[in-house]
C-alpha cells in the first residue's frame, strides 16, 4: 500500500520534475561544468580555473557588475514607489479612473523591443522629444544615450516607466482586498491620512511589496531587451549589464566557456539575493 502511494507520488511529480531537470537543473550543471573545462566553444578534458582567473582581470566585467548593481539599486526602489503611488491614486475615487488605470498599464503591454525603438527616438539628441522639451524651457540639449554620464540613467528611466505600471496592478489588487472597516475605524479615531497609510495600508501591503520586490530585482538582472536597441552596452560599456555581457561573449565572441563563468557569477548573485529576500525580509512580512 505504502509503495503504490510512493510510486503514485513520483508519477504525479514526474511532469514538473522532468521539465525542471531538463530545462533548469541540467543546464545549470552543464554551465558550471563548462566554466571549468571549456575553452572557447570547445570542451577541454582537464579542469582549469582559467576562465575565472580571466574574470578577475577583466575590467569590463567589473564595470558591468558595478553597472548592474547600480541599475538594480535605482530601478527597484524607484519602480516600487512609483507603482505604489500610482496604485493609491487610481484606487481613490476620481474622474477618469479607468482611463488612468489603462494609461498606467499601457507601458507593460507593449513589447520591450518596440518600446525601446520609440524611446530611442525620444532620446535622440537632435530630433528627440526630451531635448525639444528641454529646449523649449531654455535648456541645452543632452546626448542622453551617447554620454557615459547619462546613458545608464537614461536606461533606468525607461525601465522604471516600463516596470511601474506592471507592479501597480499588483498593488491595486491588494488595495482592494483591504477591509474598508479598518479605514472607517481609523477615521472615527480621527487619524491623519499619512497615519492611516503608515499603520494600515502599508503593513497590509507588505506581502505584495515582497512579491513585487523579488520580481523587480530579478528583472533588474534579467531584462536586457532594450539594450539591443538603445545602446548595445555602449558607449564604452557605460550601459553594459551582466546578462548582455554574457550574450556578447557567447554569441558575438563565441566564447561559451567564458560566458559560462559569467553565468555562474550571475547565478551566485541571484542566489544571494534570494537568500536575503526570503531569509531576512520575509520574517517581517505579515500574511
Amino acid at each position, binding site marked *: 500500500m505504502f509503495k503504490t502511494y510512493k510510486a503514485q507520488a513520483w508519477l504525479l511529480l514526474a511532469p514538473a520534475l522532468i521539465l525542471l531537470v531538463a530545462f533548469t537543473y541540467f543546464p545549470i550543471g552543464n554551465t558550471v561544468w563548462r566554466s571549468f573545462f571549456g575553452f572557447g*566553444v570547445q570542451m577541454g578534458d582537464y579542469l582549469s580555473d582559467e576562465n575565472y582567473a580571466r574574470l578577475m582581470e577583466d575590467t*569590463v566585467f567589473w564595470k558591468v557588475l558595478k553597472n548592474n548593481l547600480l541599475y538594480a539599486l535605482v530601478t527597484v526602489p524607484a519602480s516600487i514607489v512609483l507603482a505604489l503611488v500610482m496604485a493609491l491614486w487610481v484606487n481613490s475615487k476620481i474622474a477618469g479612473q479607468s482611463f488612468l488605470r489603462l494609461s498606467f498599464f499601457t507601458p507593460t503591454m507593449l513589447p520591450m523591443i518596440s518600446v525601446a525603438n520609440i524611446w*530611442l*527616438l525620444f532620446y*535622440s*539628441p*537632435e*530630433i528627440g522629444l526630451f531635448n525639444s522639451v528641454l*529646449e523649449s524651457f*531654455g535648456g*541645452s*540639449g543632452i*546626448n542622453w*544615450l*551617447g*554620454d*557615459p554620464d547619462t546613458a545608464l540613467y537614461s536606461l533606468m528611466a525607461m525601465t522604471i516607466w516600463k516596470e511601474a505600471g506592471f507592479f501597480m496592478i499588483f498593488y491595486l489588487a491588494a488595495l482592494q482586498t483591504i477591509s474598508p472597516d479598518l479605514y472607517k475605524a481609523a477615521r472615527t479615531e480621527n487619524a491623519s491620512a499619512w497615519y492611516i497609510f503608515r499603520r494600515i495600508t502599508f503593513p497590509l501591503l507588505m506581502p505584495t511589496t515582497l512579491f513585487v520586490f523579488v520580481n523587480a530585482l530579478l528583472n533588474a538582472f534579467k531584462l536586457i531587451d532594450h539594450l539591443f*536597441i538603445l*545602446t*548595445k552596452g*555602449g*558607449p*564604452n*560599456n557605460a550601459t553594459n549589464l551582466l546578462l548582455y555581457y554574457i550574450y*556578447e561573449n557567447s*554569441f*558575438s*565572441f*563565441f*566564447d561559451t566557456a567564458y560566458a559560462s563563468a559569467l553565468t555562474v557569477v550571475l547565478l551566485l548573485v541571484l542566489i544571494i539575493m534570494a537568500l536575503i529576500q526570503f531569509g531576512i525580509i520575509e520574517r517581517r512580512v505579515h500574511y
Partner: protein
Amino acid sequence: MRKNLKKLLTVGAIGLSFSALVHAKTELTMYYPVSVGGSLTKVVDSIVADFEQQNPDIDVNAIYAGNYNDARVKALAALNSGKPAQLSVMFSIDVHELMDLDAIVPFDEVISTPEEKTWLNSFHPALMENGLVDGKTYGIPFQRSTIVMYYNKDMFRAAGLDPEKAPSSWQELIDMGQKLTKKDSSGKVTQWGAMIPSTGYPYWMFGALTKEKGHKLMNQAGNKTYFDDPKAIAALEFWQDLGDKYQVIPKGTIEWGTLRQNFLEEKTAMMWHSTGNLTAVKNAAKFDFGVAMLPANVERGSPTGGGNFYLFKNATTEEKKAALELVKFMTSPEQAAKWSIQTGYMGISPAAYQTPELKEYVSSFPPAAVARDQLKFATAELSTHQSGRVRKLLDDAIQAVLNGQQSAEQALTSAQKQADRILSRYR
C-alpha cells in the same frame, strides 16, 4: 551536325526530366541579414522567386534573420542543432571566425567548369579582399557597400557653397563644416556641419579615417592588428577634434540607428553612412541632396562593408551544387543590377554596371555610381580571428576617446595590447 545537336538536346531534355523525377527537389535554407532601412526583404524574396521559377528542381527557403550579428547567430545555431542550412549571407568580416569554427568551405572546392572559374573572377577585386584567405575564396560578395558622404545641397547653397562640390579633403571638411554649422542666438547649434556615427559600427568609420591616413588596421591573415600606429592615433585625434576643437560634428557619440533620420530632418548638412541607405534616402529626402566620396587626407579611402555568401561545410555535394547555382544567380549582372537599384548597395561586378538597367539608372541618378567609383580607394574591413572581441576592443576605445574619457594614444595603445593578447595564439 544540326541533326546531332537536336538529338543531343532531346536526349539531354529526357535525361534532365528523368533525373528530376528520380531526385526529389533539392531544398536549400539560406539565412540573410538586413542592416539598413527599407524593405529589403521583399527584394530578396522576389529574386529568390525568380530563381525558383528558373530552377524548378531547387526549393529555396530564404530566412530574414535580423542584423549581421543575428544572422550569424541564427545560422550557426541552426547548424549546431542539426537543422539544415546550406548557405547564408553573413558579415563579410566573419570569415576567420567561421573558418575557426570549421563551418564553411571555399568556393574553389565546389566550382568545376571553366565557366565557373571565370565567374569567380568576375567581381570587383576590392570586394573579394575580405573573403580571400590563404588564396582561397570563402566569401562571394552580395550586399556590399562602402561608406559615402551624403550631403544636403540646399544647405550648401544657403551657406554660399558650391552645391556640386562636396569637401574633398579633411581641411575642406572642417572649413565647409564650420560654414554649415549654424547656431541660434543662445549659442545652441541648430544645424550641424556633419555627423559621423559612432555607435553600431564605430570601427568601420574609423577604418575609413585610417585608410585616408594611408594606414591599414590589420593584416590579411587576420592575426595582427595595428591600432597603436601613429597614423591610427592621428586619425582618431582628428575624429575627436571634429567635435571638440572644430565643432563641426556633435561632441560625444552619435547614434547609427537615428542618423539617417537626422539627415532627413535637416539637422546635419552631411552624414557619413553606408551606401546601402541610398535608395531609402532618395525616397524620403524632401530636399536636394548629393552623394560624394569621403574626403581625403593623404589619400581617399573607405573600407568595404556588408555581407558575403558563404557555403556551409555540412551540406551534401548535391546541395552545395544547388547552393552554388543560387549564388551564381543572385550575383549575376542582371540580378546585381536590380538589387543595386532597389537598395543602393553597389553592383558587385563591373558587368552589372554594363547592364542596360543599371546604366540607365546611373545616368539618371549619378549618386548610384559613387560607391563603385570609390572602390579603387577601398580597403578591406577590419576582420580578424575572434573578430567580435577584437572589434569590441576598438569600438570601446573609439567611444572612450570621443567621450573624452581617454586620450587617443592611451585608448588605442591599450586596445592594441589586449588585441595582441587575444591574437597571439593564431600566429
